[in-house]
């Protein structure tokens, strides 16, 4: 015979349908959102993993300063295959948009093959296929004509390049920029015709794939060193020690010839000449490796999938917190039901029902509702929510097409774990309650407190004392209300705080920008050995280098080292002679203080540099070190008059374009905030609205519990002659006061929470900026929550009005 008590489930469900519908909707929404994220994430990751074979994704790429000779290419290490991937980085102008930088490649046949999202690849010289994401951001449609470095080209297709799934212009950039940066493909002929400097980039792939990431890293380091040596020696050797010995020998042979006199033997001269002559074939092949980026370190390839991961991780935590809050809501509801049904439970226990049988019954509802929510949530997750998340990803990244795949992790994390969480929290509370003896149930004495007397209250007005008693009696419910409000506030702090943080960052960046333009030169001298100068009065020489951190919160983070002229008009600081200044962003991220010593290393070698921090320079635009230009040249063993380029508040027109390596503009530096704002800004209003709804529902559930728990008392005070106005002042006003206090307290806590979460995220990323939530925004958060509450309190007042007077006399022994 099936336990007849379980027949109650459907009737309980029907009786309290409003509560269970709210719980069901909240859980379904939360599980659906998380499931959608996991499924979208899993599907996109699979598409990304598959792209290695499907689109022949590179294992890395490198760039030579000049076009390498056939001989040099032939001397490259045998374990890789090089694929020419020359590009021209030029300007792109489309209707209604600012000028953007576009990296134009020839159509790739072998490696990093394009995924055509819409349209087709170019077939004629007047055609171009551009990145789909960039086109979306700039409102470019197929058929439009864009001007690429002065040449009008018709857009015939939108593409996603596997090596540019995230549009990072430089790997050291803080953030990708799909608005002002683009990648494009043209035919070979169109490429040749396109004016612009050629960048001699080669993508490579290993003959045999490395067995692990560790091996890939090891191979990458080894390969970079070998190629750098091969390039520098024109293919003479790939051994660094041999190259260094050769360099010493060349110095010695050159010195022999330069300093020969009557004491120099003929043999020495002859040997020096022979040796130097033997190197001549290599001399024509010498080159310089100016960039080497193994695939695993390429942000343009890995940023998107890693970002998916962090999104999901945050969502996972939010789901667990939310389910835990709902589990407590359930547990308190069940606990109140147990109190209400104490006499029945006592009778059943006295008749012989076991604790287990009754526990199973009271556990059924939370488990059933969670199961139903999980099923619904998963259905929504695989359909509506997945599509929403995918569109969000497509709005940020240049991703290839994907297919939805079954995601076991989503099932475990959005179905099993919430179920287990709900099960454990409810089981714990129900078992604790059921531990009481049948007699205690029969006597309705369910307090587990050993306190025999009521808490003494101060001599205050009767109504205040009454309210305090209500508060003490419902402490558990108010505690959960606090957590519920804290959860809603955390979501609100995300939705309101994040856009404001970005706005603030943009504002700070505008105020603290070192200069509008940073002109980086190929060299500080032209081909004739003349130092490059400009007549632009705003221009100021500076030096720049990038080193990497070797310790602290983020190992391998690029730190920009600036060498600044004395009395600079762009970096207004007294630069110390015995140390450096670090930017405030660097100091905050790596917790640096005056007197600390920082050690950084060169990116592609083991050479390290140590600096003593003598102060913090207020600059949030990047992780930077500032030193005197003379010290810079000395530190990096450069010529005394060496410099990297010019800082300038205006454009410099009198330097030959061929002499400029790159120009860093305000847009480059602002890319982080612009891109995040673009990707997430629109969603934040929706999140705020969702918060309002979740806030209403959570507060509705919790205040409903409190009023139901006090139904008998409310009924009794009605019997005694209290008016509804007075009853509201006792019960509703108390809850109002608590909600207001919770809202204020949790608004501050949530900002702290957001700051902590954001810091953790920023530790994993390059760059740094801090959460900024203004007082007005905190008021806005509190306002949204209070609006939620006041909507709910209207229903609470109605509910109190409806409590019948007979409740006071029901089932009271």
């Amino acid at each position: 015979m099936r336990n007849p008590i379980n027949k109650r489930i459907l009737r309980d469900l029907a009786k309290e349908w409003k509560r269970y519908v709210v719980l069901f909707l909240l859980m379904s929404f939360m599980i659906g959102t998380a499931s959608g994220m996991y499924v979208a994430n899993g599907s996109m990751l699979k598409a990304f993993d598959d792209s290695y074979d499907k689109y022949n994704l590179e294992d890395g790429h490198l760039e030579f300063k000049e076009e390498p000779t056939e001989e040099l290419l032939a001397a490259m290490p045998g374990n890789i295959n090089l694929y020419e991937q020359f590009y021209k980085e030029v300007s792109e102008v489309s209707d209604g948009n600012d000028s953007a930088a576009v990296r134009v490649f020839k159509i790739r046949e072998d490696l990093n093959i394009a995924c055509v999202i819409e349209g087709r690849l170019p077939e004629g010289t007047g055609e171009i296929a551009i990145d789909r994401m960039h086109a979306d951001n700039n409102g470019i449609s197929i058929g439009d004509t864009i001007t690429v470095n002065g040449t009008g080209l018709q857009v015939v297709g939108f593409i996603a390049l596997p090596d540019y799934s995230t549009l990072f212009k430089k790997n050291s950039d803080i953030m990708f920029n799909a608005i002002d940066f683009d990648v494009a493909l043209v035919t070979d002929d169109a490429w040749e015709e396109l004016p612009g400097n050629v960048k001699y980039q080669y993508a490579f792939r290993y003959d045999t794939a490395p067995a692990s990431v560790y091996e890939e890293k090891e191979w990458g380091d080894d390969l970079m060193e070998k190629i750098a040596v091969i390039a520098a020696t024109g293919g003479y050797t790939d051994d660094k020690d041999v190259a260094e010995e050769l360099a010493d020998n060349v110095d010695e042979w050159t010195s022999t010839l330069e300093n020969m006199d009557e004491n120099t033997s003929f043999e020495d001269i002859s040997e020096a000449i022979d040796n130097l002559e033997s190197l001549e074939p290599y001399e024509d092949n010498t080159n310089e490796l100016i960039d080497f980026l193994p695939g695993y370190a390429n942000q343009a390839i890995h940023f998107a999938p890693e970002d998916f991961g962090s999104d999901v991780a945050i969502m996972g935590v939010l789901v667990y917190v939310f389910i835990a809050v709902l589990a407590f809501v359930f547990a308190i509801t069940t606990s109140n039901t147990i109190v209400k049904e104490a006499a029945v439970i006592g009778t059943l226990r006295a008749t012989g029902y076991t604790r287990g049988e009754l526990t199973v019954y009271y556990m059924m509802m939370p488990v059933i509702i969670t199961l139903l929510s999980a099923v619904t949530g998963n259905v929504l997750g695989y359909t509506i929510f997945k599509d929403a998340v995918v569109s969000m990803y497509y709005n940020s990244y240049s991703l290839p097409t994907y297919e939805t795949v079954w995601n076991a992790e989503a099932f475990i994390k959005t179905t099993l774990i919430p179920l287990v969480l709900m099960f454990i929290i409810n089981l714990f509370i129900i078992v604790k309650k059921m531990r009481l003896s049948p007699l205690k149930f029969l006597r309705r004495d369910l307090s587990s407190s050993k306190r025999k007397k009521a808490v003494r209250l101060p001599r205050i007005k009767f109504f205040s004392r009454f309210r305090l008693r209500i508060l003490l009696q419902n402490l558990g419910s108010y505690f959960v209300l606090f957590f519920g409000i804290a959860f809603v506030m955390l979501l609100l702090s995300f939705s309101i705080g994040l856009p404001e943080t970005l706005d603030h960052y943009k504002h700070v960046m505008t105020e603290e920008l070192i200069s509008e333009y940073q002109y980086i030169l190929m060299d500080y001298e032209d081909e004739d050995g003349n130092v490059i100068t400009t007549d632009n009065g705003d221009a100021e020489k500076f030096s720049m280098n990038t080193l990497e951190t070797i310790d602290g919160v983020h190992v391998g983070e690029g730190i920009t080292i600036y060498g600044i002229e004395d009395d600079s008009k762009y970096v207004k600081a007294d630069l110390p002679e015995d140390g450096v200044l670090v930017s405030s962003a660097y100091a905050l991220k790596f917790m640096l203080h005056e007197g600390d010593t920082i050690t950084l290393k060169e990116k592609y070698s083991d050479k390290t540099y140590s600096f003593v921090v003598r102060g913090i320079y207020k600059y949030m635009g990047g992780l930077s070190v500032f030193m005197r230009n003379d010290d810079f040249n000395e530190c990096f063993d450069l010529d005394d008059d060496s410099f990297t380029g010019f800082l300038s508040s205006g454009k410099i027109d009198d330097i030959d374009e061929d002499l400029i390596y790159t120009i860093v503009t305000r847009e480059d530096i602002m890319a982080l905030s612009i891109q995040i704002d673009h990707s997430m800004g629109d969603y934040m209003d929706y999140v705020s609205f969702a918060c309002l709804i979740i806030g209403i529902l959570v507060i509705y559930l919790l205040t409903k519990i409190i009023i139901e728990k006090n139904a008998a008392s409310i009924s009794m005070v009605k019997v005694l002659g209290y008016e509804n106005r007075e009853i509201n002042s006792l019960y509703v006003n108390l809850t109002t006061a608590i909600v207001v206090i919770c809202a204020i307290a949790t608004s501050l806590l949530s900002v702290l929470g957001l700051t902590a979460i954001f810091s953790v995220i920023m530790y994993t990323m390059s760059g740094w900026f801090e959460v900024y939530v203004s007082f007005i925004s905190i008021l806005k958060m509190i306002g949204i929550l209070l609006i939620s509450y006041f909507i709910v309190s209207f229903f609470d007042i109605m509910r109190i009005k409806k409590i019948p007077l007979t409740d006071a006399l029901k089932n009271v022994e």
Partner: protein
Amino acid sequence: MSEKELQEFLNVCNVWKGFGEGDSRQEVLRGMDFQVRKGEFCVLLGPSGSGKSTLLNIIGGIDSADDGYISIAGDKLRDMDEKMLTRYRRKHLGYVFQLYNLIPNLNVKENIEVGAYLSDDPLDIDELLNTLGLWEHRYKLPNQLSGGQQQRTSIGRAIVKNPDILLCDEPTGALDYNTSKEILKLIEDVNQKYGNTIIMVTHNNAIQDMADHVIKLRDGKVRKNIINENKISATELDW
């Protein structure tokens, strides 16, 4: 079961029970001693505070004695752990309370099924519903019933598993005169039909006349232990 065992089916032996600690401690039962035979209709009679409900709870295994013991068919309750006590209640006891304590969203028949579920060999529910006079009301929820009908249902829930002992705690305490008599008649019928031992706590003196065995309590002690040779039917009671 031997004659002696039948004679001493329920043995209450020097049972002591107190509440509170130190100066505020109050002894509710002070060495209670009596036996009840199997199938007997026993009434525990006494004023408020005499300890009758406490004693009933100890017999029911939902409270424990501080000293002394209670045995049923030779098994001492004090030797039983929590699990054994639950099993004891499940197999041997039925409980009827003054306030019925029915499950509000189960109908009459289902409330009785709640009791039947605990027994391997329950009584026929339909037949019982007829005996209880509830056949027409079997699909009604408790709040659609009168107090008497609710108490009938609660009796039905208690006896459907055909327990050895039916414990009734002021079963007519919340009912009017006529309904009380109906309920008492029902309990009498059940006792006669199914042969359960019935222990009923009441403060209504009139009820003693229908009992086989009357134990009068005062201040936690047995003041009188009477075997009623001239018991009358419940229908004849008057108060």
